[in-house]
């Protein structure tokens, strides 16, 4: 395959990954890593490096579009970024020490379970009746626009959410993904925040989390410009299309997309973990 056709194919694939990443709040990385590795036979370390770059592009590109809609929460995002960036440091440190087979399998199992529990809950949850005292102290609340006007919400089970976020950061640093699925779970399932607030705040956080391990990746030579170029430009374009769809889409449709994507990725992670690919 020539340089032109290789770049064009990777670019096209990255556009699709970008759309999916923005729609689901996953961040595109979890789609692009296995596709590059399995379809394009790219070494996993190059794939991870290019993915991490694309993850920052997705997050920043989509977040720029979301802020106008008033969906993301800057305080909740910032507070939880303490956990994700510390986790990302640990993850980047662990990459050299630990084999990731076991973690890939565990992560896959977590994803499959979340797909199942997301599938059972239909529609958006109403705002939490009784806010957590810790959430009050940390100002982890807000209001978001719905069909019935501005709807207030407040975070619950803050320590649990913070803990899951640390795990999300570690996986991000270890596997070069945004781990948006785990971030959405921490906010949507653990902290009981509205789904759209969770996905958009997750998108906001992914860039900062990925930046925490990007410096280490660059120094290790995981980021190759010839591969990162079409991946970054493609994912960025895709994420912009995806974020425009998200604002218009119904939550139920969104959740179905989310369920299918995380179930497929969960199976893929387990398969790759068992066969020693990841």
């Amino acid at each position, binding site marked *: 395959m020539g*340089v032109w056709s290789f770049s064009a194919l990777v670019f096209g694939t990255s556009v699709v990954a970008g759309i999916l990443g923005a729609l689901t709040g996953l961040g595109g990385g979890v789609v692009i890593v296995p596709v590059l590795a399995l379809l394009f036979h790219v070494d996993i370390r190059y794939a991870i490096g290019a993915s991490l770059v694309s993850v920052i592009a997705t997050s*920043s590109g989509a977040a720029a579009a979301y802020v106008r809609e008033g969906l993301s929460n800057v305080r909740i995002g910032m507070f939880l970024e303490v956990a994700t*960036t510390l986790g990302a440091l640990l993850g980047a440190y662990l990459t050299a020490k630990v084999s990731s087979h076991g973690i890939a399998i565990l992560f896959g199992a977590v994803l499959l379970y979340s797909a199942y529990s997301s599938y059972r809950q239909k529609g958006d949850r109403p705002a939490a009746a009784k806010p957590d005292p810790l959430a009050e102290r940390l100002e982890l609340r807000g209001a978001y626009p719905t069909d019935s006007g501005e709807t207030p919400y407040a975070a619950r089970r803050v320590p649990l959410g913070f803990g899951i976020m640390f795990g999300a950061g570690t996986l991000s640093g270890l596997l070069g993904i945004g781990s948006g699925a785990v971030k959405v779970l921490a906010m949507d399932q653990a902290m009981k925040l509205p789904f759209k607030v969770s996905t958009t705040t997750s998108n906001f956080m992914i860039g*900062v989390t990925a930046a925490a391990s990007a410096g280490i990746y660059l120094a290790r*030579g995981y980021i190759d*410009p010839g591969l990162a170029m079409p991946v970054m430009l493609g994912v*960025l374009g895709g994420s912009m299309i995806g974020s425009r769809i998200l604002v218009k889409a119904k939550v139920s449709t969104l959740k179905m997309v989310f369920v299918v994507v995380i179930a497929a990725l969960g199976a893929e992670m387990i398969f790759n973990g068992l066969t020693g690919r990841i």
Partner: protein
Amino acid sequence: MDELTGKETAFPGKKTEFTDRQMEIEIGRMLRIGVSASAFVVLAGGILYLRNSGAPQSYEHFHAAADPLRTLASVLRGAARRDAASVIQLGILLLIATPVVRVAFCVVGFARQRDRLYVGISALVLAILTYSLAAGGR
């Protein structure tokens, strides 16, 4: 949602003119500039790369990117020579810097709101990011 509604949007006791909404809009603008600038530089490097490169590179086996592509100083030197790979890498460095600048923006934004708790929290995130970039650059 009943008892919450009253105190929810206003944040009583914090009557500052700089609201979260305004901060988010400023962050949005900053992110757009950062991402556009880096995409432009990567695209420029990409055009150079596609025009110059003859034989296709194989990514099947890992041999790490060349040393000059792994530190800020050498990427800048390469980009000045209009070396395609270095120009792309410079764009990627701009992209990595974008979320870091975003966090710095938040430190300033929360300071303008006199929200000490969140100045502290965002400064902590900034410190973690700076540490990891410095540790990676060594």
